[in-house]
């Protein structure tokens, strides 16, 4: 056993590695196209396509290094890495360069490094380490510690670095907690329903907010949207009564049903008010997404992004306009087309064939990761694997959903596609650690 595992590629899952390399190659091609112009030169390190090629080379080298290191290194140093990355994320707030209002980047030479990206795998390592070491997964202490591990980087990234998009990704770890039985299915469902209720409450408000600009722009008055509220409550009551008809009616059940109804009704009423309490750019994004009226300046920014993104993708037809032939991306109609909106280039130049291929490659990757996780003897590897799958899953949903107008504009990258060294390298580390852990799955790691 020992001798064989010395060989780097022993038991490496080639399906995963192939998809990884394929996605990275396709990603680079699309970045090249997105920034393509007459001056394109892949050896000019001032240009993004050259930088990204360099990042890809670094990533592949890093992948080798990870495959060389013994898997036990990651289990042993999980907490240390976590601590170090947390410190790095705090340090960047004070030592980093300000870019677009957030202190989340280190500038080194011509390159920038975003430590928040690295927090994803570091947190996941710590989470896997912790969850694989406990005996009582359903204890309150376990839940609190788990929450602590996840929330600490979130708070730092969102609160101190103002990188809301990156921080939101940590919500992906709920999927891991669900798999491990720490978060029960009903709670997850409850959360999803609450989010839905919240969104519907904004879209069809039970509370109508009015600002009388002539008096005082800051002063708002609230009105009761009776019609909307009655519809919501009636629907809930109908479900509640249905539930009570189907189950054994104990006092406890009846009370529970009405508490739940009350909760959702309250959520409907509170949603519009809560939305107004958010920072104005967050409110604007959500309102744009839901097609609610917004001030001109806000719709110019967020509606414009979504509209241009959908125009670029929507003009792709079956097979796209051909490589380097996109007009919407080439002529810079789509903002941030090489980073968050790189999927537009895929859509415009490769059409439905290209977009489905990319989405399906991700589907295969995520499914493969879940299947691989389930074959582990080691809890650590399983938990880590689910975490990797969850991170990719959420990135895919949020990023692609944003470009096709299904979700609000949230600035997170499409793994291996979006331009950026920090994210490419970070995703490589995230994925390759799992590939390495999996290759030693016959050993039990703690």
């Amino acid at each position: 056993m020992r001798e064989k595992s010395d060989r780097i590629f022993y038991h490496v899952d080639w399906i995963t590695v192939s998809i990884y390399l394929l996605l990275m190659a396709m990603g680079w091609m699309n970045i090249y196209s997105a920034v393509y112009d007459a001056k394109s030169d892949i050896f000019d390190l001032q240009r993004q396509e050259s930088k990204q090629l360099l990042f890809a080379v670094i990533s592949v080298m890093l992948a080798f290094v990870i495959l060389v290191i013994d898997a036990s290194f990651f289990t042993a140093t999980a907490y240390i890495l976590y601590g170090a990355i947390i410190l790095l994320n705090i340090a960047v707030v004070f030592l980093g360069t300000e870019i677009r209002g957030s202190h989340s980047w280190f500038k080194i030479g011509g390159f920038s490094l975003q430590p928040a990206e690295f927090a994803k795998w570091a947190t996941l390592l710590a989470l896997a380490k912790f969850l694989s070491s406990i005996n009582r997964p359903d204890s309150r202490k376990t839940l609190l510690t788990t929450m602590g591990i996840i929330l600490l980087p979130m708070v730092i990234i969102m609160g101190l670095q103002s990188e809301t998009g990156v921080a939101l990704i940590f919500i992906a770890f709920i999927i891991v907690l669900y798999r491990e039985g720490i978060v029960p299915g009903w709670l997850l469902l409850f959360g999803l329903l609450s989010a839905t209720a919240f969104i519907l409450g904004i879209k069809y408000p039970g509370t109508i907010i009015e600002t009388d600009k002539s008096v005082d722009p800051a002063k708002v008055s609230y009105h009761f949207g009776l019609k909307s509220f009655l519809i919501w409550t009636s629907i809930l009551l109908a479900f509640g009564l249905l539930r009570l008809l189907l189950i054994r009616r104990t006092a406890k059940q009846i009370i529970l049903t009405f508490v739940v109804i009350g909760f959702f009704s309250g959520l409907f009423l509170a949603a519009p008010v809560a939305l107004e309490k958010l920072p104005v750019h967050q409110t604007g994004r959500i309102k744009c997404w839901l097609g609610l009226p917004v001030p001109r300046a806000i719709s110019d920014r967020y509606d414009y992004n979504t509209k241009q993104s959908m125009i670029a993708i929507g003009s792709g037809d079956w097979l796209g306009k051909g490589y380097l032939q996109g007009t919407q991306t080439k002529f810079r109609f789509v903002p941030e087309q090489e980073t968050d909106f790189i999927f537009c280039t895929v859509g415009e130049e490769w059409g439905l064939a290209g977009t489905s291929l990319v989405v399906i490659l991700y589907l295969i990757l995520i499914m493969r990761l879940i299947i691989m996780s389930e074959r582990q003897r080691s809890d650590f590897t399983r938990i880590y694997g689910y975490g990797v799958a969850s991170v990719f899953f959420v990135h895919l949903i949020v990023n692609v959903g944003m470009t096709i107008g299904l979700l609000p504009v949230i600035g997170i990258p499409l793994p291996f596609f979006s331009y950026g060294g920090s994210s490419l390298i970070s995703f490589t580390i995230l994925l390759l650690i799992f590939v390495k852990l999996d290759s030693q799955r016959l050993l039990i790691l703690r």
Partner: protein
Amino acid sequence: MNPGIRQYILLGLTLLVVVLYISRLFYIQVVDDKYKLDAHNQAFLYQTDYPPRGVIYDRNGKLLVFNQVAYDLMVVPRDLKDCDTAGICGILNISKEEFLKRLAKLSGSVETARGDYRSHIFESQMLPELNARIQERLYKFNGFYVQARTVRKYPMTIAAHLMGYIGEVDERITSEDPYYKSGDYIGKSGIEKGYEDYLRGKKGVQIKMRDVHNNIKGSFKDGKYDTAAVPGLSLISTLDAELQQYGELLMTNKIGGIAAIEPATGEILALVTSPTYDPNLLVGRDFPKNYSLLVQDTLGKPLFNRALQAFYPPGSTFKLMNALIGLQEGVLSTSTYYPCAQGYPPGGGKPKCHPHPSPLALTGAIATSCNSYFSYVYRSIIDNRNYKGDHVAGYNAWRNYVLSFGVGTRVGTDLPFDAKGIVPSAAYYDKIFGKNGWRSNTVTGVGLGIGQGELSITPLQMCNIICAIANRGYYIVPHIIRTIGSDSSLAKYQQKHYTKVTSPHHYESVIEGMANVVTGGTARVARIEGIEVCGKTGTAQNPHGEDHSVFVCFAPRVNPKICVAILVENAGYGSAWAAPIASLMMEKYLTRKINRPELEQRMVEGDLLHRHPQMQNLQPKHP
């Protein structure tokens, strides 16, 4: 819960999301064309090259219409940022409110204008001076550019109705014909409409690509799909500009129409409508203003092409037709005599007639225009024994003869909007009098025999009848264009349309009568020295006032060169105004000079418009 199930829930969830996303992608990429259109509109700029419209010459090579350069001020509302609005308002002499109003009208609203990347005409057909002032400061007027276009110029200011006019296409046309885009011009009437397809040429297009800042990034596929503009074809009209001009002069202060056709070819030599207007009025920026002025003149109706569209009773000129039909049907011969008692005896003296010798044979009856005679002839056609007393069959036979002369049907001329006229069908009388409720005398009584009653024909159709007589049995479809580009053999105008009156002898008999009309009959005023003129007067009763003065004629008798039909509204006897004007027209055409200056002067100066109190304010010819 069993962890295994959670695994499948998560796998299922992933699959579900991916299926949902691919469906959405399928919808926006393949199904919904909205995005493709938007992408296209954003990134592509179609620069249209407008070809010059074809010019039109008369039959002698005189220029009837040519093109002048004019400039359209175009606006792309989205690009109006930092535009010197005050400057442009100053040059165009409009207020800021007017500026915004125009913009809102073009884009739908001021709000939508902000994102409107289409080009609109902001100010159309500016003259070179105005254009020069704009060009000087164009660099300050972001969002504006100038596009050279052409406007029509009519050097002779004649034949307004024949030329027609061009105007901006409306929405109906742009939705039906993809060639036309909003802001394009199209022929709306006359030759401009009838020959639109040839005159317009073919627009050229240059497809440019532009970026988000509206900078041009070069030609699409290196100009592979660009096309060059093809100029419109020039047309040679059959019109004799000099004759047309003369006809318009003669019709000064009169209402009516003249048609003059070369019988051998069907070529329209002149088609005069009075009152008329200067065709240059309906050109360029002042079009809307002038157009509404012309429309407001509801008495003179200067936009109404009377020669082509007005329904007139032909009056006595129609007796020629009935004579021909009677001869062909064998119910009339040159030696048939009918009595006249200053009226039609079987009709109890109706229709009435004027004093003249009686009885008369055919030639004399044509020369004196005897109403009684032709009422007899008409009755004999309807009550033809060949139809065994079936007056409906007789009526239908008569009607078919009439239709074969191009009356009551569209004669097929190349001018748009030509009217059919009315030759009532037997069914019409069935409806009025009931089936079997009418007899030959019924229709004779209302005056079909003498060109009255329900008969309505246009001056052009009257002239066409005379062409058929002059040609002794056939006509060629009257037309206004003889050459399109270099193609002068228009097949449609080679074909002879034979009438149902087939024997040349019958025509000679009628022509003999027509010659007598001029030599010793009702229209001696129409005589021209040295040319044998054949004619027929008409004095058409009508419900609008005094009789219409009508005259039809051709000359010379042998190998005719010109046929003229003229109707002057409410001008009395055919011999009073119609015959002299027609005669002068023929003299002008055949000899190129006028030997009867007094007659000419009397005709030109004759003012029939201002005799009626309600017409006192009527402008005879619009400025």
